[in-house]
């Protein structure tokens, strides 16, 4: 019962709940469904990325807008790294991706900021263009040279001749031949301000605003000149030609103005010269006006100049149009004809002149000699043909012709009698020639004699010189000989003196030498004399033989002096008595000299008294004799 009641109340409660909370229950179901969906999405990666990506994009964009510098700084740290990594992993893909972005950007930048791009690229492209232009010119010159080398036409030889004569290269001539430049306009422009002073234009090609064009041309010229002077400070050159497409501006300056010729092609040297001549005449005529020009175009001079310009332009028109290429090409041929004509004329003149002189001489001869002689003059030579009657006639003809200043080549027939005369003349001539030869021979002999004399003199001089040298070195020669001879005895001092000291020559205080030692001294002395007096090249110059006596250091100086003199004198007397000395007549030329205890002999710092008691024998050179001999030889 109670259970039933409870069940009944439960059902009612449910009914009541449905009635009261129907909306809430529905919302609860929806919430449960939403939670389930969220639970699913939070676990699904793709859904998360899909939701978060726009959010991050927006944050990044906002950061770019507000904190641009910082964002770039952060991204910059990784961007380079990403690019490097990508290039290592897949370079092709990276290149392809970047190309897609960069190429359109560059194209857009060029389209929108052309000037800026030109400024940036100009230094690079300028250099490239310059190189390409240089290369193109080189190729053009090569092509021309090739044509010159290969060409076998007559034109080539004409050009070659013209190049040789004028000094202009064949390449330039070839270029010249191919260029005819019609002048479209001529402008005279004030150099400093760039203001147009006067102009002339071909009617068909009038320039819209010449004043603007003049100013612009002036600016371009100044720009190029400045550029050239900045890049090449060594030259003060100025631009003369500016080419753009099919137009060429030829610019020539003088004083305070310059002229611009607008041409369709580059002008050749001749045309430039014509323009320059014309311009020079204008500058000469209006120099003062040009200097004073301040932009006023009402001046009378301007009209005059314009007329001159127009006149020149009109003159140029036929030059550029009517002057056909053929005419230009035939110029060298004219030149060849000209040269040939000059050669032919010179031959003709020479021929006529010779003919005239022949006539003159023939007439003069006829006036002198009744016989007719045929004359042929060529320069200074004259050939004579004909026959004479007498030798005198023949001689007269020769004399007359020679007096006229000609060299005669005679073909005159002479009668038999005249042959003798010819023979006589020939003999005379032969005799004269013989005389000349004899004279020449005599001259030759004289010269030969002179030559031999010079050779002899030279030989003598050489001999004398050698003799002088020999005499001058006589002393050293003697010394050399002595050293060689007495090398074993150790008794020769540096001056060539023989020294006797180790043979117990003298006892202490005694002036009489030991007899055994004296014999040795005598023998050495004799050898000494032989050596000095047996050689005729030295004997005449030996003066005295000096014998020096010495003592040891014992005793007083006075005693030693006397003792040394006694020792020297004893030896002198002994030697003077020798036969050899007498045979050399040296008795009077032996001198004794006592030198006491001077020049003592020391051995290891201790006096060797026995050695100090000694005798020295030395020779003296007779200097006067020697000098006289040298002088004599030197004088020859």
């Amino acid at each position, binding site marked *: 019962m109670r259970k039933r009641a409870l069940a009944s109340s439960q059902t009612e409660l449910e009914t009541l709940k449905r009635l009261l909370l129907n909306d809430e229950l529905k919302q609860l179901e929806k919430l449960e469904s939403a939670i389930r969906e969220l639970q699913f999405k939070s676990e699904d990666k793709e859904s998360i990325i899909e939701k978060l990506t726009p959010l991050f994009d927006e944050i990044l964009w906002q950061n770019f807008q507000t904190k641009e510098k910082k964002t770039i700084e952060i991204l910059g740290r990784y961007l380079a790294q990403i690019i490097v990594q990508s290039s290592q992993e897949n370079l092709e893909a990276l290149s392809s991706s970047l190309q897609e972005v960069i190429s359109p950007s560059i194209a857009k930048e060029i389209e929108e900021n052309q000037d800026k791009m030109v400024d940036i690229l100009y230094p690079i492209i300028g250099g490239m263009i310059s190189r390409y232009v240089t290369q193109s010119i080189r190729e053009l010159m090569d092509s021309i040279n090739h044509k010159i080398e290969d060409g076998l036409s007559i034109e080539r030889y004409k050009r070659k001749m013209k190049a040789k004569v004028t000094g202009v290269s064949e390449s330039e001539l070839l270029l010249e031949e191919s260029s005819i430049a019609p002048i479209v306009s001529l402008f005279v422009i004030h150099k400093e*301000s*760039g203001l147009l002073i006067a102009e002339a234009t071909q009617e068909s090609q009038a320039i819209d605003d010449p004043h603007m064009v003049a100013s612009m041309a002036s600016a371009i010229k*100044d*720009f190029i000149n400045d550029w050239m002077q900045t890049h090449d400070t060594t030259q003060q050159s100025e631009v003369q030609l500016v080419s753009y497409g099919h137009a060429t501006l030829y610019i020539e300056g003088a004083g305070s103005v310059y002229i611009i010729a607008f041409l369709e092609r580059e002008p050749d040297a001749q045309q430039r010269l014509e323009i320059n001549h014309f311009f020079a005449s204008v500058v000469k005529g209006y120099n003062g006006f040009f200097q004073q020009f301040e*932009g006023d175009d009402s001046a009378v001079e301007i009209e005059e100049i314009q007329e001159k310009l127009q006149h020149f332009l009109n003159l140029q028109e036929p030059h550029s149009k009517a002057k056909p290429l053929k005419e230009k090409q035939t110029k060298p041929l004219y030149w060849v004809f000209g040269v040939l004509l000059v050669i032919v004329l010179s031959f003709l003149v020479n021929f006529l002149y010779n003919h005239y002189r022949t006539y003159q001489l023939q007439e003069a001869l006829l006036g002198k000699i009744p016989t007719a002689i045929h004359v042929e003059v060529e320069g200074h030579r004259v050939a004579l043909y004909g026959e004479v009657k007498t030798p005198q006639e023949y001689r007269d003809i020769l004399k007359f012709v020679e007096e006229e200043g000609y060299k005669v080549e005679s073909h005159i027939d002479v009668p038999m009698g005249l042959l003798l005369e010819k023979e006589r003349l020939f003999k005379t001539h032969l005799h004269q020639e013989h005389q000349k030869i004899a004279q020449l021979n005599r001259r030759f002999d004289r010269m030969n004699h002179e030559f031999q004399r010079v050779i002899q003199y030279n030989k003598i001089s050489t001999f004398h010189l050698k003799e002088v040298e020999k005499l001058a070195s006589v002393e050293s020669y003697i010394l050399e000989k002595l050293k060689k001879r007495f090398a074993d005895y150790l008794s020769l001092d540096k001056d060539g003196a023989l020294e006797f000291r180790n043979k117990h020559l003298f006892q202490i205080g005694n002036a009489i030498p030991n007899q055994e030692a004296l014999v040795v001294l005598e023998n050495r002395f004799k050898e000494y004399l032989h050596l000095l007096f047996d050689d005729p090249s030295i004997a005449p110059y030996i003066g005295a033989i000096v014998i020096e006596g010495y003592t040891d250091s014992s005793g007083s100086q006075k005693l030693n002096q006397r003792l040394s003199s006694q020792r020297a004198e004893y030896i002198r007397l002994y030697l003077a008595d020798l036969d050899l000395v007498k045979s050399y007549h040296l008795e009077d030329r032996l001198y004794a000299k006592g030198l006491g205890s001077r020049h003592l002999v020391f051995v290891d710092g201790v006096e060797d008294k026995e050695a100090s008691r000694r005798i020295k024998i030395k020779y003296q050179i007779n200097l006067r004799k020697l000098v006289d001999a040298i002088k004599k030889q030197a004088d020859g």
Partner: protein
Amino acid sequence: MVRKKILLIGDFNVGKTSLIRRYVDNSFDEKYLTTIGVKISKKCLTIEGLECELLIWDVEGQTPHKRIPHSYLKGASGAIFVADVNRSETIEGIDAHITTFLSINPHSKYVIAYNKADLLTAQQQEMLSLSGDIFLTSAKENLNVERLFITLAKEMLL
């Protein structure tokens, strides 16, 4: 007719070209000659009955990489030195421009334009005390542009 060459000289971005564009109805193609640092325009005017044609050389400001040839300055009868009134360094630079110009053309006339005046407030404009040859100009608002050129033309011609 008298023709005169005049120059517009001043630092970069001071509004030289804008001034010319405002003044010259017959403006030459501006892209032309940009690379050589000068644009040339022409303006005809009559000063007290005297016909005159100005050939106006808009000389680009010099930079370390781009030197303007002094020959551009030669032969000019007058010059307008332009500064941006909002950038003091451009005003200070005018003296150097004038010195250079007068060293080449000692007898030429000149006026000075403090341009971009439209960026100044009215109060700032009043505070500026300008002498006779200095003009406060605005190419944008066409302030004193014609006066600037005519004053120079009068100086040159009369």
